[in-house]
């Protein structure tokens, strides 16, 4: 997983930047600041582990087959996961249609969703890009992740 390091670094830096800009998000997370959220895009060999931890947050990329240790695991198509956490997709509707599935602490997931949505954070924000670029950012993140997935699939083959 040669790309894992740079991706983790990029995502972690973005998360911490967002935390500095919008510290109120952590007030909203309240008791779930130290929770470990696992975002698992469907049909991807990797999952993302996100731990908000105020300004010391960490994002890690781990194999999907690794045993689940998180507070909650959120599964679904990548676009739905991205949309879920930037507020462009209604979480309840995504859940009702079963495109998003949640395992573990449902309350933690609600807190994360509500906090990100209230802070009007997008994935573009997490990557430190200007808001109008969010479509591009999502797409480029997606490409980056797909590249990572392809390499990982080859590496493990």
């Amino acid at each position, binding site marked *: 997983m040669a790309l894992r390091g740079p991706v983790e670094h990029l995502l972690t830096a973005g998360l911490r930047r967002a935390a500095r800009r919008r510290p109120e998000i952590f*007030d*909203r*997370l*309240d*008791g*779930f600041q130290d929770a470990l959220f696992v975002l698992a895009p469907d049909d991807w060999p990797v999952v993302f582990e996100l731990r908000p931890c105020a300004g010391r947050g960490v994002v890690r990329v781990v194999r999907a087959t690794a045993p689940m240790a998180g507070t909650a695991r959120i599964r679904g198509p990548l676009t739905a996961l991205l949309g879920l956490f930037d*507020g*462009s*997709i*209604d*979480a*309840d*509707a995504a*859940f*009702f*249609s*079963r495109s998003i*599935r*949640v*395992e573990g*602490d*449902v*309350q*933690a*997931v*609600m*807190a*994360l*969703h*509500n*906090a990100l*949505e*209230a*802070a*009007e954070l997008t994935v573009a924000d997490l990557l430190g890009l200007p808001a109008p670029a969010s479509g591009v950012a999502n797409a480029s993140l997606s490409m980056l992740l797909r590249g990572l997935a392809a390499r990982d699939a080859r590496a493990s083959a």
Partner: protein
Amino acid sequence: MASIELVCPAGSPAMLRAAIEAGADSVYCGLRDETNARNFPGLNFSPQELKDAADWAHGRGAKVLVAINTFARVGAVDIWRASVDAAARAGADAVIVADLGILAYARDAHPDLRLHLSVQAAAGSVDSIDYYAKTYGVRRVVLPRVLSAPEIAALNRQISVETEAFVFGGLCVMAEGRCALSSYATGRSPNLSGVCSPPEAVAFEDHQGQLTSRLAGFTLDRFEAGEAAGYPTLCKGRFQAGGEASYLFEEPTSLNAMELLADLAKAGVTAVKIEGRQRGKAYVARVAAAFRAALDALDRGESTQPYERLLSSLAEGGRETAGAYRKTWR
């Protein structure tokens, strides 16, 4: 006939702005504590956010209604009184209250603050509405979701206060404020803690595509792969009675009474209300825009029909009902 006021939910300042930009006349919101009936993690307003939001809304000609609509915890009534004070300080256009003690406090401490009676008070009859109006000076009643449109019309002919009716979103099948199902299973309920079927008691189990939802260990439903699921709200679970499994209380549907807007207008309701402070800005933007368009059509004397199917993908289990507004629901 006066235009109907569109009242939309706001779980955060971002959602409040989205609702007003999409056409809400009023938004309702709560403080970030147990004094409001959507006491979910990550949701709601700090007193300062409420003040800023009210200023922003007033600058755009919109109103802010503050829900302080849970029943005060014994020995801690001052928290609820402080919420009323905070709403008054923020310049709220009204507070939405259910508790007798808090109604009395708002009446006495803030005589100029407009009082709305929360749906949690379950006041659905002429007599109870009269009592709240005469005793506490309540100016508007949010009607229980168990009344039919003709019943609302009859009610409005006999009462002196405004009425507000839910038209979209989650559907309580029980009389609101008169339901303890959630605390029976989990220890927490709307009346005790401002939450129903609280997320910390919810568990999902995915077994080879079959999804089982549980609340505090009680199985509420089971879905085959590909079948639309719902949040495990207790009254919308699948249960067995008399040897038959069914959605005994209510299917996992949500309320969409857009097709009845004209009837509700004729029935004399002052305002229509969208449920869902917990559902975020994408939701409220869509629903507010659709209802804005429908209400504007109504004002022009046109049909609301073109807008009626705009929102079904937002519905629970993908299904909608006009609920109790049609009498056959019972």
